[in-house]
């Protein structure tokens, strides 16, 4: 799409938006595809596992959720490589999708995103589930650069409890762990743009 100056759009009439609906119970056969959670080839240099559990308001794991991540590469470049849906096992497309298991677990093979424009690095995340009437957007921040996390204007606007729901845990093997709670105690902070 051609770039449009923001000023050119001002005053232009906007179209009405198509509203969202739940992904429903039987999304797997329409959305699941080979290697969809392999943003990078497993065990390739720099590859890590990012995993977690999606919980409902009663603390029960949600077995029919769909989690998507989208991030910069380790150098902080926005990926423009094609092929998220048909992996060639070397192009970094930045996008991954994971349907939760019967135990509510999602999992990605990916890399640590680099900082873009000096900001605290994060994965952009979309969450869908049966019973969830519309998508939820959130972020998973890397826990490693405390200085950048402290300096982040958005994170700074949150309470420590809220902030904690957005920052992943680094495991001893270098992998990342991050749970998503749709409701209740330690409810994940979700975003609207």
């Amino acid at each position, binding site marked *: 799409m051609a770039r449009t100056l923001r000023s050119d*759009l001002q005053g232009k009439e906007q179209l009405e938006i198509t509203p969202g*609906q739940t992904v429903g119970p039987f999304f797997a056969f329409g959305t699941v595809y080979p290697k969809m959670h392999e943003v990078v080839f497993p065990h390739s240099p720099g590859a890590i596992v990012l995993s977690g559990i999606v919980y409902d308001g009663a603390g029960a794991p949600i077995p029919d959720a769909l989690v998507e991540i989208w991030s910069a590469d380790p150098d902080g470049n926005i990926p423009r490589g094609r092929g998220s849906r048909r992996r060639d096992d070397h192009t970094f497309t930045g996008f991954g999708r994971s349907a939760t298991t019967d135990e509510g677990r999602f999992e990605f093979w990916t890399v640590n995103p680099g900082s*873009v424009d000096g900001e605290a690095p994060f994965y952009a995340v*979309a969450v869908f589930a049966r*019973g969830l009437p519309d998508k939820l*957007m959130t972020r998973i921040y890397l826990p490693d650069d405390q200085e950048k996390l402290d300096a982040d204007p*958005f994170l700074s606007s949150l309470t420590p409890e809220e902030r904690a729901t957005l920052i992943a845990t680094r495991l001893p093997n270098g992998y990342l762990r991050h749970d998503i709670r749709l409701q209740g105690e330690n409810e994940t902070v979700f975003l609207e743009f």
Partner: protein
Amino acid sequence: MTSAESDPTGEEAFSSSVIVEQTAVAPEQLLASADMPPQSQINQEIADLHAEYGRREAAGEKLRATMYDFPPYRSSILRHPTKNPKLVDPETIELWSPAYGQRDVAAIEADLTLQHRGEPQGERITVQGRLLDSWGRPIPNQLIEIWQANAAGRYIHQRDQHPAPLDPNFTGAGRTITDDNGEWKFTTIKPGPYPWKNHINAWRPAHIHFSIFGSGFTQRLVTQMYFPGDPLFALDPIYNTIRSQKDRDRLIGQYDHDLTVPEFSMGYRWDIVVDGPDSTWFEPEGEH
């Protein structure tokens, strides 16, 4: 691993012997609501909530098109956030979308009637439209995925318990990439209404699930397209999670006789408009 192996001293056994690891139930066990109310009660709950949203909006509150907290859709009760989403400026990666292209999808994947040896049962239809951003600009080269029940209202998903026939010639999933004008088109079978266990005698209006990528990740959309004149609209809690009639109407594909192919298929048109900013909103580098 038993507790004896993980805790050789047995200390933890004293303090936490009652903690039994929760075993997840089979997902289909979760599909039925706990109370199974009659349709009349669901109708009343929907009407009450829509009236309440109308009052809140009249009082100046800004509400989303789709309500997260909508108890008539029983499985949403424990799955919706209770806090308002934080309004943030999208940053860097969020203003871009994964780059898709023709290499990601074969052209034949947009025709759900050609995936098996024979022709599927049911009413052959085409559904087509444009993918636009809110400024009316077409979004090319983006992925649209669809999935649906067959003509009898049965999903191929193994957890679907509806005792309607499977169709050996119909899977019900397809995908396509929008062209340079943001146009997309699917050939498929009109899905049947689908019974579910939200309440007694609960039936979903016939629908096709759509998953859509815009030009920014903020614009990511999963929704459902319905068919004109369905008598189940007013009875369906999922359709009515969208609180206003004009927004609900936006999910109904329009019958278009010009798209109907003689002796072959019925034609529907449905344009999709995604919300939210993307990278093209911003002034190019060096021209600030």
